[in-house]
């Protein structure tokens, strides 16, 4: 099985890392870039496929040269074989459509130079844009089927099909099983759990981990950079110029004002506790 995982570097929105200015706008320069958290599930699904069926996993991203470290991070968690970074000033400020055009052109080039792709994996949405469009639009460009909100995945390499359990309406209470032909885009849900019930799979997992820890240290040697010329792309169809989306403005969501008054009571203060009980007593009757 040959898999490609799409990933993106996003601002680290975690507490302590993220930085906003006074107007509530994100300060990109002061906020570190990390791998999009939802991509982890895509990587786990690709790893499960690799462990169970062997083959090759490549990780691909579009972004500035600084995203190299994000790909290095991805290599460690998915035990990837090689990395592809689509990096060009002409790609800057792309919306999901222009990004999908770029990614699909890169996938075409990948297939020409290496081999046909069996599975494309993407995270279900990014932490910054939150659209969830890029993966499906890329599959549309490639004319591949797509299965989203996947929580469990089985591949039949001989039949060249996959069978996936997916959440209906994103709800764990309702799960449907679908089949699709390869090549196919798979978007794992955050509920996705890789399963390794065979000892041979766990041994393979362990072998790959040992093998990759050496490889990941030298990840830049396994990283290929492509610009728009490499991918034979017209600059008018990528980046800002190729993006039909117009962002009219961005408003920060104001913090909800607190209207309640709070009184602090020490648990040892018996008089105050007594008053508190008096306050609460009427509610105890269910009024």
């Amino acid at each position, binding site marked *: 099985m040959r898999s490609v995982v799409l990933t993106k570097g996003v601002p680290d929105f975690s507490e302590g890392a993220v930085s906003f200015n006074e107007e509530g706008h994100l300060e990109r320069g002061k906020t570190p870039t990390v791998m999009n958290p939802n991509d982890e599930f895509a990587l786990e699904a690709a790893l499960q496929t690799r462990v169970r069926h062997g083959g090759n996993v490549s990780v691909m991203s579009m972004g500035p040269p600084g995203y190299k470290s994000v790909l290095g991070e991805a290599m460690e968690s998915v035990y990837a074989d090689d990395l592809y970074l689509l990096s060009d000033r002409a790609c800057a400020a792309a919306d999901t459509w222009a990004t999908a055009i770029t990614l699909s052109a890169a996938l075409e080039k990948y297939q020409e130079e290496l081999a046909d792709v069996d599975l494309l994996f993407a995270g279900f949405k990014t932490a910054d844009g939150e659209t969830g469009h890029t993966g499906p639009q890329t599959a549309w460009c490639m004319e591949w089927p797509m299965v989203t909100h996947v929580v469990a995945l089985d591949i039949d390499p001989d039949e060249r099909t996959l069978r996936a359990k997916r959440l209906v309406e994103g709800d764990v209470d309702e799960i449907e099983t679908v089949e699709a032909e390869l090549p196919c885009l798979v978007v794992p849900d955050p509920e996705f759990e890789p399963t390794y*019930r065979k000892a041979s799979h*766990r041994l393979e997992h362990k072998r790959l981990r040992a093998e990759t820890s050496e490889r990941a240290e030298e990840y830049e040697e396994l990283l290929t950079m492509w610009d728009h010329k490499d991918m034979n792309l017209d600059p008018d169809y990528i980046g800002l110029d190729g993006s039909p989306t117009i962002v009219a403005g961005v408003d920060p969501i104001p913090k909800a004002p607190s209207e309640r008054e709070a009184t602090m009571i020490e648990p040892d203060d018996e008089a105050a506790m007594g008053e508190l009980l008096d306050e609460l007593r009427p509610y105890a009757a269910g009024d």
Partner: protein
Amino acid sequence: MSANGYEEFEAVVVGCGPGGAAAAARLADHGVETLVLERGVEAGSKNVSGGLIYGEKSAPYTAEELFPGFREEAAERPVTETYIHNVAGDRVKSYDLTDIHEHDTAWCEAVLRRKMDSWLEKRVHERTSETGGGVLTDVRVNGLLRENGEIVGVTCDELDPIRAELIVAADGVNSELARDAGLMDWEEPEEWFQGVKAVVDVEPGEIEDRFALGEDEGLAHLFSGDLFEGVRGGGFLYTNESSLSIGTVFHLDSLVERRAEPHELLDALLTHPLLAQWLDADYDEREYAAKLVPDSKKVALKEPYADRLVVVGDAAGQMQAQGPIIKGMNHAVTAGALAADAFAVTRGNADPEAAGRRYATMLEESGTMSKLRPRRYELARTVGERDLVTRAVEGVLDSPVGRLALGNRLADRALERAYNSPYLVSMLPDTRTGYVTVPTIVGEQHGRPVTWENEVEPPELIDRIGDLTYDTDVGNPHIELLDESFEASGAAVYACPVSAEGFGGGCYRAETVRTNGGEETLVSLDTQPCVECGTCAVVADTDWEHPRGGKGVEYRQG
């Protein structure tokens, strides 16, 4: 893959302690495809031992021979001196036991199990990987796979069932496989010892100063006498690289009978004036641990096999405890390696028990069985352990005549020789006489008062539990209390090393509840603080299993 869809390996080894490691390494040497399944997050994370591993001159295998570099890289310090201290109050008489220690000993090392077993795990994984297998951690084998009533493999919590030509149960003292096969039970407290241990932190370089040792030297101190409330057993102190292993080991039936609290007996040792020379007020306990120990004299399996299953180490009761000599890990190494050799020579034999029978023969011929179950002990035991005899002997010893006999100067020398005689030691019946009465009288009659002030304040049980690492399997307790009456399960409140009377933070507690027309004392269980020692499986009425792979207590020292 086998015909019926099960995954298949030539050999499956359950447990990656010294027995499992030796079996797996030898199997790989024979070219056998070997899968090792370990339930801990890493080998050693579930293991505890007092801390000495021997290389015996007479044994067919030692850990160093099987795993070159073992002593240098996996062990702490060699034992170069051994003493026993007979304690009576604050009077102590010490004997040099180096002679008996060195009998048949090529080498002896103090070890901490997390370090030792995780080192072994890496070696075993390298070697078994070469023959198509390897070591998997976080996998709990929960039983035997049978086809038409015959054992053909194992079942696991985390993996689908696995078939194998050979199954090695090296799953420790609470072996679920040996019990599934009907080879072991948890019925009789007198078949078990229970040990508790504190690993005490010492600044690097301090050991040499405090014990007057060179860099590659180490000590073993043993303690017996009246400092343990009359419970049959004793204490030990071993020197590690930059820590001490200090512990106590008691006959489980004696602990139950005396309603003793194991952690308090350990504290009695830690706070005795004798230990003030080695411990100060800066006492810093790295880890509190506990373990059940099989008494090989009573439970070592004479036929440690069933169908394709062979049982090695503690799982087969192969733990030799005779007087001051405690040897377990070395026998596990021998047994594991012999089981592998037995499989190699009987490979392809249609009889599923061929390897097992061969293994039993090799255990016998290598002299291992006669160490585990000495005939001298069996003969001496028949008279020696009868209550009447014990009481009569005790009466004589404690009389003025007896005290004179043990108390004169000639007796002093004779006693040191007796302690150092492998012949006499292997005969010692397991009664109060050997453990308590004789050492106490020796201490009283020959001992000198020790008046050092011991400033050690051992941690409370709640802090000892609080310092342990757990990954609790919330909502899925691994022990079920079947009978909550005090009569059936009350002993666990005392004997469990992480429970105590009047302590609410342990596994077992007793509560008095009002019932129709009266009061009743009931026992309740919370498995969160459990250290998986197995004591309650013997002394209480439980359904006892290990936690799932990677769950439960995780020892850092062991």
